[in-house]
């Protein structure tokens, strides 16, 4: 267990963040906090990719013409994380726009209150 924490702490953090994010989405009645939970959940995924791509002493994959010079870090996971961050930001923007609309309509961002109001 201690060994796992010492050598694979980034993966442990990934799992913890993922669960925290999921729990926030389920347990918080506040819509904005749900969106924050979603962001935490997505950050966990980014952390997973970054941790998996880590190479001790690795250099950026700019190979000189005569080759050699390794070890290099694979650029692909970093590109994936960059793209996923862009996707995440746009989703957050749409989500917050919807929350603004909901607040304009019902005057609340609390899920429990919202259910009562919407039932009328």
């Amino acid at each position, binding site marked *: 267990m201690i060994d796992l924490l010492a050598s694979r702490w980034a993966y442990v953090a990934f799992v913890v963040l*993922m669960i925290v994010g*999921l729990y926030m*989405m389920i347990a918080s009645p506040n*819509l904005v906090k*749900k*969106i924050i939970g*979603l962001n935490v*959940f*997505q950050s966990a*995924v980014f952390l*997973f*990719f970054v941790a*998996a791509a880590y190479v001790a002493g690795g250099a950026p994959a700019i190979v000189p013409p005569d080759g050699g010079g390794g070890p290099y870090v*694979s650029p*692909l*996971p970093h590109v*994936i994380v960059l*793209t*996923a961050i862009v*996707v995440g930001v*746009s*989703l957050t923007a*749409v*989500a917050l726009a*919807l*929350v603004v*609309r*909901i607040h304009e*309509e*019902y005057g609340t961002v609390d899920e429990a209150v*919202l259910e009562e109001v*919407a039932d009328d």
Partner: protein
Amino acid sequence: MTDGLLPLLVAVPVLAAVAPPLLCLRTTGTGWYVAAVACAVEAALAALVVRSVFLGGAVRHVVGGYERPYGIELVVDGLSAPVVALVAVVSLGVLAFAYTAGPRRNSFYSAYLLLVGGLMGVSVTGDLFNMFVFLEITGLATYALVAADRSGRSAVAALKYLILGTTGASLFLIGVGYAFVETGTLNMVDLSERLAGSYGDRAVLASFGFILVGLGLKTAVFPLHTWQPDAYSYAPDTVTTFISALVSTVAAYAVGRIVLTVFTPAFFEAVPAARAAVLAFAAVSILAGSALAAVQTEIKRMLTYSSVSQFGLVIAGFALVTSDAVLGAVVHLVGHGLMKGGLFAAAGVMAARHGARTVGDYARLGYRSPVVAGAVGIFGVALVGIPPSVGFLGKWYIAVGAVRAGAWPIAVVVFLSTLLTLSYVARLLERLYFAEPTEPTDPAVGAGTDADAGAGTGADADSEVGARDPDPVADGGARADSRAPAAVSTGMVAAIVAAAVVVVALGFATAPFEAFLERFLGGVFP
């Protein structure tokens, strides 16, 4: 030659989506025309690609000239060609429907085109991460469209969909990450080669689990369907028609692609528990979806739960991994898209004409809107699976595949779901044609009926298409139903009838489906 068209399939709608907001600087009514041109071009491109797949097998395009495993590959083969055709045809059809039904804002058509581009992207991509990106583009556009009528309820439904849909996509991404860490590649064909031999690995199993659950959320398979009823019933009718026909369909196609191309039938042979788990998941979805649909009173909710059940059927077909079952799954995927799209469009017309939203409201509408009610009847009967219709064909092949694979429980479940489907479709048809002409108890319905009795029932009966009800919703004063189409035109009814004709005609079209799949399945099942 046609491989150069594949990137255009994605690029044309995405680039065209930029035009409507720009045009807003000068005018706000031109979005529809931009979308119409883009969708027509899209349909022509899709027709060329599908024809080329039909004649010469899979079409591949290597984006930017970076060969696999480094670059992204776009592929249309026997599995994706029917989906590409469906996306192109339905997006044109719904656009025709939207001309009168609205919404007519430019921003709506921007999201509409983005959605078409995203759906095409998921269908043509040969790269797992690329698939994630297109799933998210599809998702983003769908969330915006669900909330397009700007009501509070649709915004809440869209937010719920957004949170669950994004969670699903993130789970999919985790699964992709596991597969990537295991193999170091994202190309589907390359992945399937490198995964072979390490099927028992925990990372591979976890990857399969995460991807399936993620896509299950997007497809809305029971019990991951909870976003769908609200999103479908509170979205504007035009939007429901579009997304019910395509969005879950493309996610289910992605499940088929992952199961057949990435993990391949060999994975299921090596890990029978994975196959059993997916089949159990699908069987529960089929039964629970049908049962929930049978107890609904609101039409759009009933149709939504019916979708949950039908997608269980499609996933069961893919998970059975026999050539019959996969053929059935693809046929049902296309057929369900047409049937459900048609049903939701018809529900929209009924809501606009008669203010009818529940099964009870449909009482005797078969005589007041005979053409649309007839189309509802055809779609409903096809959904049950009565020949000749595409619904029958799909269910038949899935059931045959289940029997041949020795998966008897699935065959029994298909049969039971047919009975349950019959129970809710029959209830609807009974209301449409055989309801007692009693005194209306609901004041809203009463107002509509009285107005019609005065306005001329005879006119409705023979020239139903031309004679528009004098806006029954207006009877109540304000426009109560922001979801319903603004008006009903002949073209909208014609679009629904055309869909019904296609649903019946495809019932005779096993040969083309088989021809498509033969080449693809030849590689999957040697």
